[in-house]
């Protein structure tokens, strides 16, 4: 049994990212979609950290910190938008939000 290495971590990161993508593409509740986006971001964070550990450089740590800060801000703005959306349309169901249809 070999030790847990870069390969394993990246595989996990890929799985998490794919789950996030599937969630974004298929779930109809905007809050779930939102959570799936967060999942994708954290999957990326995981790969950053894994590379940082592998190469012994601080860049990856630094970058994942930035991603977390941006994600926090994005979550704040995104949730505010969701609340506004609900107030105006009384729904958070994505299928019903199609006024941009050409």
């Amino acid at each position, binding site marked *: 049994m070999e030790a847990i290495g870069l390969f394993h971590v990246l595989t996990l990161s890929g799985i998490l990212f794919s789950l996030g*993508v599937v969630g*974004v*593409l*298929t779930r109809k509740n905007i809050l779930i*979609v939102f959570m799936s986006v967060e999942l994708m971001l954290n999957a990326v964070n995981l790969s950053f950290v894994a590379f940082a550990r592998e190469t012994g450089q601080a860049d990856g740590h630094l970058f994942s910190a930035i991603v977390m800060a941006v994600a926090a801000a994005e979550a704040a703005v995104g949730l505010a938008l969701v609340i506004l959306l609900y107030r105006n349309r009384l729904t958070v169901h*994505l*299928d019903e*939000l*199609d*006024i*941009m*249809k*050409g």
Partner: protein
Amino acid sequence: MTASNLALIPALPLLGAVINAIGNRRFSRKVAGTIATVAVGLAALMSFATLFSLLGHHEGEHNEIAFTLYTWISVGSFSADIGFLADPLSATMMCVITGVGFLIHMYSIGYMDDSADEQSVWRFFAYLNLFIFSMLLLVMGDNLLLMFVGWEGVGACSYLLIGFWFSDTANAVAGKKAFVVNRVGDFCFVLAMFWLFWALGDHGTLSFHGIQEALAAHPGLVGGVGGFAVTGIALLFFGGATGKSAQIPLYVWLPDAMAGPTPVSALIHAATMVTAGIYMICRLNFLFVMAPIAMGTVAVIGALTAFVAATIALTQHDIKKVLAYSTVSQLGYMMLAAGLGAWSAALFHVITHAFFKALMFLGAGSIIHALHHEQDMRKMGGLRKFMPITFITFTAAYLAIIGFPGLSGFFSKDEILWLAWSTPPEFIGASWPLTKLLWGIGFITAGLTAFYMSRLYFMTFFGEYRGGHDDHADESAHSDGEHAHHGHHGDPHESGLLITIPLMVLGVASVVGGYLNLPHWMGAASGKLHHFLEPVTGASEHVLHDIAEAAHLHYPAHGGLEFPIMGITLGFVVVAVLIAWRFYGKSGGSAPDLGKLRSGSYNKWYVDEFYEGVLVKPIGRLARCVLHAIVDVKIIDGIVNGAASSARGLSAWYSRSVQIGQVQGYALAIAVGTTLLVLIYAM
């Protein structure tokens, strides 16, 4: 006079125009007029300096000053310079243009004093200066292309000045007519340039010296003497000249051009611009001499124009219209001379005509100014009492144009008539005595000229003043404020010094101008201009001499017929003057009733109506019904609109279906796209 100063001569009027354009409305009439007049005056001084330095050259030297500012166009083996050339021909023209131009600028300061024009008078002077600049470019350019720039420039200035009072639609229409008719001629000029350049092949150039050398060295390139190419080129150049110099069939714009202010008529439509065509033919004499048929065409058209225009002038009532047709007629004489290979005689008549016709227009302007824009001769009469200076100077011009012995017009016109009589018809490609016929036309025209000029002269200055006092009642009603300073309206009054000084100077010039080129029988003093022009026309005259020698003719003929012919002409002129005195000498004199002939002449032989019906209307219909309705609307608009509507159709079919409005649809597209990109780069 150094060569580089040559560029200053056209630059000065250009500078004047620019200053006036910048000064704009801030400049009053006096300021704008002074700037313009000084600019042209300085150019005139430098032109005369150039002329005198050419006169001072010694026999046999290369008698010209040339200066190349820079190379304008250089493409392959072709190049055209902004280059100026002052040889005897162009220097003479430069002096006429700037000299007469200076006097007319000065006159304009006095003439344009209508308070309604005060806001726009700067524009007038800027255009006048721009005109002098273009005209100088036309005569000084050392190649055809630069000449063409000036040629178009004077056309544009003419258009702008004819329509100077554009708020009156008739004036704007007259300007447009002049521009459009000129355009027909200009098109011929362009075609001629193309053809000439193309025919010269490897020796292709547009500089005058270059063309002359190429034609002398390789006459075969244009088909040799009488060849098809050279004849076609010369005819096309002449086509250009018929536009600018108002010859049949394109003369119709000039009488309408009288809509412009009178100084403009004097400067542009009598003294300078309209002689551009004659100048061009004189400049290209080496080309025309190779095409006898083209020369014959020039001479015949010139003689016919002289005659037809004179017949129309007989019955016009508008004083400026008479002068306009007279100008067309005199230009015909010049063309006749140019076509007969008598280039110096043509230029001589250009000069004397510039003096006396400018003087007549300025005199007419002085009258019109005094009578508050009255141009109908039936309402004039007896003006010699009110306007003595205008009367005396006009008399000088009148005697000059009818050919009173000793005055300028006598010498120049007589020379043309004698040359028409004595030139062998072989020069113009005819085997029968065509030149005698041309002389006959010119002879009759001389009588007609004497008649219509006497009519004008008697109707305006003799008899009783027919202005009438009733007119003043309604005139003072609408111009009370403007002309209040004139005091009593009753009588016309002499114009101010700014107007009379140019009249007097031109009066002197009209009297003595003939001494520039006295006929050969006057002995040592004779033929000065002819001799001076020899560097330009000498080679072509040699060609003509060779033709004459080959046919065993004596040319120039100095037979004993010269005096009898002069005598006959003079006698005819005297008879014409007496007939005019019989009909118009006394106030209210009635015109002879000639029925249809009279109304035909008065209506200009219906040429305008003919052009309207045969050319303007059908072309207008073609433009509306075919070019607009089919080509423009259906084809061109169809392509543009078709492109737009097919794009719309495409987007309806494809692009709209992509815009599903579902956020997750877009996200799917992004995901698939990204994946594909990654896959492509990974492979």
